[in-house]
């Protein structure tokens, strides 16, 4: 499709499309200010980025962000907290930056969304009308029938950072040298595909330096995983992987035959192949779905995720509601922080245009995801994306992106750690201000 056609089309569309533009124009300002009111559910990466970029795009927009937590702990770099090289306070982000831009940050939890009546109701009893609603609740967990872990206080998930991260770190610190730490890795799709393996690596690094007789066992619910070659390569280089001295053991779903039970009472994981095994510390990362509010609001599909128009992130279920970040189906972007940040900018630009009665521009997206496997040992995956209308996917630009080469020099691996830290500081600033 040439640009020329696109322009002609839009011109034609402008005449016949008056009906289309009308709702947004009519609604602009009907719920707050003359420029329109946006209510954002969730102050994680996707929600906070959208809030910031809405204000950057049009400072006059009335933007309210509802988030139950007083501050946010990033999942990214939380594996370094487990390793002991970073403090919990070093992954904490405040909402002051958003407030200083004029975003109204409300400490509350959204209980329901009335998409027809265009309002959001909170647990605290407040109601917020909106012209456009942005839902970015991240993930929640599916109930895996075999798991008996109660409130995750004995067996953690630590897949939402904060108190869970602190608990798991304490358990690892309290574990005797010679103990075994088990990570149960989730089935696809899930938040941060390389995350469980980075976690295994950094805990192994902690063990190597502080509890050298200890081991990490990953019981996986898949047969392969993200950056697998790079991770196993790192494990060979750093942790003796493949030898009987290896600190890390990875068990594929095929090799265990599946999980039969996980019990917090006796700290066991039972698989078909190995029966009941006792571990000193278990980190069970359950199967995942969109954050609960998404289902309550009728935004999810049968699989528990939210289908959206991938150029605006407007829900395919409810007009006027946008869903992005981990909760959305943004194929082929992974469920990552960088993706959530990138989607926030696309969504904000679309809403700024829609609220002004203008056409939505062409989106552009990027994902870069660093993993740290040990001291001075990092690698990454990157992609630049464009929307492919024919396939309705956010498609990686051919010939670009990809993984760090397996034979990257030690110096390049060291630099990737440096850039991972830079990425952390920059994306946090870009998200929360």
């Amino acid at each position, binding site marked *: 499709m040439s640009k020329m056609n696109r322009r002609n089309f839009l011109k034609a569309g402008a005449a016949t499309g008056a009906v289309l533009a009308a709702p947004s124009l009519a609604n602009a300002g009907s719920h707050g200010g003359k420029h329109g009111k946006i209510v954002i559910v969730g102050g994680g990466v996707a929600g906070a980025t959208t809030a910031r970029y809405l204000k950057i795009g049009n400072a006059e927009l009335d933007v309210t962000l509802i988030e139950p937590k007083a501050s946010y702990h990033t999942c990214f770099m939380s594996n370094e907290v487990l390793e002991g090289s970073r403090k919990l306070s070093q992954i904490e982000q405040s909402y002051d930056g958003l407030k200083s831009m004029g975003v109204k940050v409300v400490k509350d939890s959204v209980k329901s969304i009335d998409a027809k009546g265009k309002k959001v109701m909170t647990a605290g009893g407040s109601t917020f009308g909106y012209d456009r609603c942005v839902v970015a609740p991240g993930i929640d967990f599916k109930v895996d029938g075999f798991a008996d872990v109660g409130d995750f206080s004995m067996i953690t998930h630590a897949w939402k950072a904060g108190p869970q991260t602190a608990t798991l770190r304490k358990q690892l610190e309290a574990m005797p040298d010679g103990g075994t730490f088990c990570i149960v890795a989730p089935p696809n799709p899930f938040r941060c595909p390389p995350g469980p393996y980075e976690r295994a690596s950094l805990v192994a690094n902690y063990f190597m330096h502080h509890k050298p007789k200890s081991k990490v066992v990953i019981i996986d619910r898949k047969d392969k995983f993200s950056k697998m070659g790079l991770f196993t390569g790192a494990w060979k280089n750093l942790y003796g992987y493949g030898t009987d001295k290896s600190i890390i053991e990875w068990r594929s779903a095929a090799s265990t035959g599946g999980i039969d039970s996980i019990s917090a009472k006796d700290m066991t994981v039972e698989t078909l192949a190995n029966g009941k095994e006792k571990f000193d510390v278990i980190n069970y990362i359950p199967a995942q779905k969109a954050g609960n509010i998404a289902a309550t609001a009728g935004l999810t599909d049968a699989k528990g995720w939210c289908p959206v128009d991938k150029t605006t992130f407007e829900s395919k279920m409810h007009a006027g509601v946008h869903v992005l970040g981990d909760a959305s189906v943004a194929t082929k972007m992974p469920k990552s922080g960088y993706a959530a940040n990138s989607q926030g900018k696309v969504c904000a630009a679309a809403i700024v245009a829609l609220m002004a009665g203008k056409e939505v521009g062409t989106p552009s997206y990027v994902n870069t995801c660093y993993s740290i496997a040990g001291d001075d040992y990092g690698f990454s995956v990157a992609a630049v994306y464009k929307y492919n209308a024919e396939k309705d996917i956010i498609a990686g630009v051919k010939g670009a992106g990809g993984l760090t080469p397996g034979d990257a020099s030690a110096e390049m691996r060291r*630099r990737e750690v440096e850039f991972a830290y830079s990425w952390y500081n920059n*994306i946090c600033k870009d998200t929360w201000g």
Partner: protein
Amino acid sequence: MRKSMTYALAAGALMGFVSLSSAQAADASASMLADTCNGCHGPDGVSQGPAAPTIAGMNKFYLVESMKAYKAGTNRKSSIMQRIAKGYTDSEVEAIAGYFSAKKFGRVAMQNTDAGAASKGQAIAKDLCESCHEKEGYAAEDYPVLAGQMMPYLKNNLMDFKSGDRSIDNNPNMSDKEKRKKKRALEDLMAKHGDDGMAAVLNFYASRK
């Protein structure tokens, strides 16, 4: 194609959606493209550190040149930019470069620099670097801004010049005279001042507020 879009439009209207964007791809705006870079380079291209460089306020041609070099992979090695740069067309690179060059080079990252080394570096830089990186590295007209750039980034690049991973000889944008001048300055830096001298120069530029 036109037919399918009309259909998409009609379907959108039926479902009450206002988005026109299921239609296909005009070029993304400069800000849309550039915003995707901020995740690593910082808001508006001003890096919070420690290593990813600030790209705001750089000379536009230098930014274009760098992206092209990453894309071609012939005279500038990198960990990640050679994978990212390939994702953009020449006109998109132009747009991104134009966007960041119009922003202000910010010096916001907390950099740990050594005052003693920095003052030693000031003298060396005046002698060897100033004729290209003018105004103590603040100038952005002909060469990249060095003043207040991230120290690990500066160091990595100096190492790459030394090893040839960032090749002066293969840089298509430098005249032979420029190449000779730059190579001589780098050789002098290493021969006359050694590792300490290099560290001093890095401290000098990184410490500029």
